[in-house]
């Protein structure tokens, strides 16, 4: 008994006497949209077009598990990743930044990539290259709620069962080459309803710098939402 008490006292005294260096809740911490990421389960919230903002915790991951607490340290993947096997998503566990392109896409011909969900990407905040989610069996993009920065365009295409885009609601900045006509393309998702597209546009309504091109989905919504996509876009999305 006395020994147990002594051990507890010594451990407590030792811990109390250590430097405070661990990660902490990042809420409110200043951040740069394309700079060092916030802690996992946060997003760098900034005004449209601004580079600097504040880290804000993710409140809801939709169909995924809620954010973990206390905050853990995030990882940076220093190269891109082409996920063409479902198990490869495990490489992105606890990753907050991918330095390169991230492709989650199945074969152009044949069965879609059976990833099920993107919940394993819940820490991901930044992709410095392109992000493409295509030819998968995804019904929603939940798990991407932390994603705030994409450095070279974002595409969501040819996901035959996709019905929801809420996972992309926290996008802050998407960069494309100067000549590109849009930053985000939502194309050829044959089951994506008009309501989902409308909600996605509403979520990004205060970010006019992110231009969204929608084509070839279940219903065309507006004049600039084409019932079918330009062949050039299809080639681009198929990485041909």
């Amino acid at each position, binding site marked *: 008994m006395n020994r147990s008490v002594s051990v507890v006292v010594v451990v407590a005294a030792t811990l*109390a*006497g*250590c*430097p*405070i*260096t661990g990660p*902490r*809740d*990042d*809420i*409110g*911490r*200043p951040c740069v949209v394309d700079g060092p990421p916030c802690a996992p389960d946060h997003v760098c*919230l900034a005004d449209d077009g601004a580079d600097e903002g*504040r880290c*804000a*915790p*993710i*409140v*809801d991951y939709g169909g995924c598990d809620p954010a973990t607490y206390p905050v853990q340290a995030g990882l940076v993947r220093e190269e891109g990743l082409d996920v063409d096997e479902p198990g490869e998503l495990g490489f992105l566990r606890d990753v907050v930044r991918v330095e390169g392109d991230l492709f989650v896409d199945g074969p152009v011909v044949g069965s879609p990539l059976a990833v099920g969900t993107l919940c394993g990407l819940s820490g991901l905040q930044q992709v410095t290259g392109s992000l493409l989610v295509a030819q998968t069996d995804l019904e929603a993009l939940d798990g991407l709620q932390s994603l705030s920065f994409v450095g070279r365009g974002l595409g969501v295409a040819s996901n035959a069962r996709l019905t929801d885009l809420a996972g992309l609601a926290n996008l802050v900045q998407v960069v494309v080459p100067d000549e590109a006509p849009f930053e985000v393309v939502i194309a050829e998702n044959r089951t994506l309803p008009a309501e989902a597209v409308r909600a996605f546009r509403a979520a990004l309504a205060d970010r006019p710098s992110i231009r969204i091109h929608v084509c070839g989905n279940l219903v065309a919504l507006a004049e600039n939402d084409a019932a079918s996509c330009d062949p050039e876009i299809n080639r681009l999305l198929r990485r041909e």
Partner: protein
Amino acid sequence: MMASLMVAVVLVAAAQSAEAPSPPAEAGVPRVLVLDTGGDLATDQRVALTNLVATRLQRFAGLRVIAQRDVQQRLGLEADKQLAGCESDAACLAELAGAFDVDLLCISAASRLGGTVVFTLQVVDDHGEAKARGSVSVPALDDVAAAVATVADDAGRALTGVEPSAAPTPATTTTTATASTAPLPHEARFPLQIGGAVGLAVGLTAAGLGAIPGVMARGAEADLRALRVDWVDSGATDEAILDAAGRKQVEVDRLRGLWNTAGLPAVWGGVLVGVAGGAALAVGTLLTAEAP
């Protein structure tokens, strides 16, 4: 030092010296029990004076000197009880002289009186009759030792009628021997206690002050958690919460830095100094308690 003495030595012993001390029945040498010096001086100072009186009397071949400590060691609690009840009553002490099998009792006291230190000494026989008596008044504590030596020597002369020898009588060195076995000299004990107390106080203060930024940093982190809850409750829409959290983050950074660079070393250093000071204080206190 002697020259600076403002000595007012009043020896009545000389007047009484005409009466030769009654020879002891046993060995012909009277046995003198030197009681601990009383008065309001510090314990270690009174112990030093007791030792000085005993040492001076030991220099007279016609006296066999016994220290109170010796009697207490031999008779234990019983002696303590009896001596405690007779500290100021010469008649009672005279009765005790018979109980302790001594012929004479040497009673002394040293007290502060205004700006001076007064030392009195009296030797009574086993009938309670004063055989020698003397007192001295000096302006400073530093001068007491020399004056006490004079008083004790005069008392010895009055009791024996002879001059003291240069060295104490070999058979009667009990008190001196007891003092020499002490682990530290008297003058080293007070600095040890004072240094220990200062070290303990400084250590505890440093540790306490050093812990403040650490405690405050933890408190600020708790505030951040509360703001996170508020943010969730607001549906992730109230940016004023983010602004408040941003200010709190700055505070956390500052407190963390202060803790890691200054608070932590202060806590550990304070603990070490405090432990060392506490140990020194404890050792000094124990030595003082065991001092003769």
